[in-house]
């Protein structure tokens, strides 16, 4: 078993790359993919701690996170297709209808 810090460091790096994706890219699809990347890096941290503590609870939690991510992607992409049909673009700056 390698030191936990290796895995957590990798997880942090992937999470920050995901944050950069959300902040820098303008396409809604890319923002979605970056969110998936961040979810994955959090899962990696949870599995690392499960192994370190020899406790299954974190692995069960990762299982639920994957379930919720699947549901989220299905609904999110359905919304995205609807918005694309209406606006003919996936640029996130055009979605300002709810702006106060």
């Amino acid at each position, binding site marked *: 078993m390698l030191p936990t810090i290796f895995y957590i460091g*990798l997880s942090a790096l992937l999470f920050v790359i995901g*944050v950069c994706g959300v902040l*820098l890219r303008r396409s809604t699809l890319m923002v979605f993919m970056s969110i998936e990347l961040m979810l994955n890096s959090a899962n990696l941290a949870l599995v*690392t701690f499960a192994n370190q503590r020899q406790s299954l609870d974190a692995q069960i939690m990762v299982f639920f996170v994957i379930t919720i991510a699947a549901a989220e992607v*299905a609904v999110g992409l359905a919304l995205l297709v609807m918005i694309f049909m209406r606006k003919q673009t996936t640029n996130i700056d055009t979605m300002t209808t709810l702006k106060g």
Partner: protein
Amino acid sequence: MELVIFVITAIVAIIGAVAMLTSRNAVHSALFLLLNFGAIAVLYLLLQAPFLFAVQLIVYAGAIIVLFLFVVMLLGAERDEEDANPIRWQAPVAITMAVLLVGEIIWVLVRQSQDSIARVGSSDSDFGSPAQIAQALFTTHLLPFEVASFVLLTALIGVVVLHQRRS
């Protein structure tokens, strides 16, 4: 040996993530994301989580990436962000704050690693096996399991309702 596998997998994961972030074509981005998910699945194997390895490959690398590719190709939205970001100061500020964030996380980790991040208990060769996961899932965590099924059902109905033709 474990270190070699970890380093190779970590490099593949980071390359996949960075290439996803920088590639202009959404199809390429989805495929690089697939590479990253595969690398993370290998890391799950190293961390004694064979069940999650399988779930990661089936749900993430299988279902979610296929869904992404399907939507990208359906919309024909491979490359539609050629126009520049209207908020000009956003990119430098975002990169600066990301570097600050990663530095802060590494600093906290290095400070903590002396005392609290130490291996607890001995390694059980059966740890994380599907049988153990199932036992925990269907006894201790039965209620969240049922709630998750409702969430999936709600997502299913939501997608159907969203795409209903309103006449």
